[in-house]
């Protein structure tokens, strides 16, 4: 049976992982390559590298660490951040990324998803959507969640999947950082709307939040989180052990 995936997300700026990360035994880990290897060794099913660099130098550093990671870590690697053109797809795919996630780039140029899917295949194109309730309606936000695009989110996601997005990351701005669990209401709407893998993001604070997610919404394929893994609040190996004990298919 196909397993539910657990995906840590690493924000990278100027070639370093953002936020101080402190693991027992490992000490301070700021190297994305070391952290990626640590996660891979401890049961992560996939990794997301998110490039939050603004400068050209930072971007070059990012592709360097991507190359180094892909040469030493042999699980799927998704790259996002600053993907605005098929040339950007090309740049990160050449460095060993398996999937590329688009967010603001697709909002700016809605033809990007279709063009990339045609060139690299649907399985390679991940739509990442930052979604927030505004007056009771799910709206798509751009620029890291700062700008309301006014677009209705479920329709936007459905449209991008229609264009060729092979997977969807739904990041709920409403639950992000709150650590009270994933946004089940929002995720349910997305699962009803599309028939590609759905990755839940935003809101996980403890192991039980993942268990609730997968038990409540069988249509969700993966759970993504960042700081709770980085700060050791949730150990991926413990999480997956608990999933297996609770009857949720997990790769151990």
């Amino acid at each position: 049976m196909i397993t539910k995936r657990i995906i840590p997300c690493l924000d990278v700026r100027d070639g370093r992982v953002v936020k101080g990360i402190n693991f027992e035994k490992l000490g301070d880990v700021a190297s994305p390559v070391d952290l990626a290897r640590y996660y891979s060794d401890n049961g992560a099913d996939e990794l997301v590298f998110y490039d939050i660099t603004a400068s050209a130098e930072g971007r070059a550093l990012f592709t360097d660490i991507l190359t180094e990671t892909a040469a030493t870590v042999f699980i799927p690697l998704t790259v996002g951040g600053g993907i605005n053109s098929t040339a950007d797809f090309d740049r990160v795919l050449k460095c060993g990324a398996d999937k590329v996630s688009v967010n603001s780039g697709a909002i700016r140029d809605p033809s990007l998803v279709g063009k990339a899917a045609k060139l690299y295949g649907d399985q390679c194109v991940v739509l990442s959507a930052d979604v927030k309730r505004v007056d009771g309606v799910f709206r798509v936000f751009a620029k890291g969640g700062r700008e309301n695009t006014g677009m209705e989110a479920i329709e936007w996601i459905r449209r991008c999947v229609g264009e060729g997005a092979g997977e969807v990351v739904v990041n709920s701005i409403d639950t992000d950082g709150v650590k009270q669990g994933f946004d089940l209401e929002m995720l349910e709407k997305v699962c009803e709307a599309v028939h590609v893998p759905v990755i839940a993001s935003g809101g996980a604070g403890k192991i039980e939040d993942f268990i609730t997610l997968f038990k409540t919404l069988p249509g969700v394929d993966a759970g993504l989180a960042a700081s709770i893994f980085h700060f050791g609040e949730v150990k991926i190996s413990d999480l997956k052990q608990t999933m297996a004990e609770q009857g949720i298919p997990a790769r151990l």
Partner: protein
Amino acid sequence: MIAILDYGVGNLFSLKSSFGVIGAEAFVTADPEVIRKADRLILPGVGAFADAAEKLRASGLDSVLKEEAAQGKPLMGICLGMQLLFERSFEYGEHEGLGLLKGEIRPIAEQIPQGLKIPQMGWNGLIIKRESPLLRYTREGDFVYFVHSYSAVGCDDSLLATTEYGAELTACVGKGNVFGCQFHPEKSGNVGLNILKAFCETEATA
């Protein structure tokens, strides 16, 4: 030395790196001379069957592959590269494959119950059907990473392992010196690296 055939399909960086970590020397190449000199061959591939089959023919590497395989050199296809080893595929029409293994490629939609997502994307367990040198380090239930919408059928004589996705789908095949993995061993952690290692230890057949 291992030759990873470069015929313009997909990204071969991880594949080349994965051989590096298991201590095998691998080259990404389209040069028939290098391919003829290599001890083992890898046929990679992502994308659409017809496009890949056409590129393989246009490069002339299809006949090199067939000659080398006929001489007993170990050959492994990965993902779409595995599908190309069969007689034909029904992905958007009917297209001829290399015919090195008996069987054909059919949409998984025809094989599994409705309601499951296509492609199958993610980690799934292996159900071992037949002993093989390729799976000497692999145990029943080991997880490997799949991304596919099509799979091989009618390949009972080469079937090594399946995976359960609403129905049993072909995951791994091998007959004589010709092997194939529907999943990505280079993305399947240690389980995948061990399959690549086992492939590096297979013997040429006479």
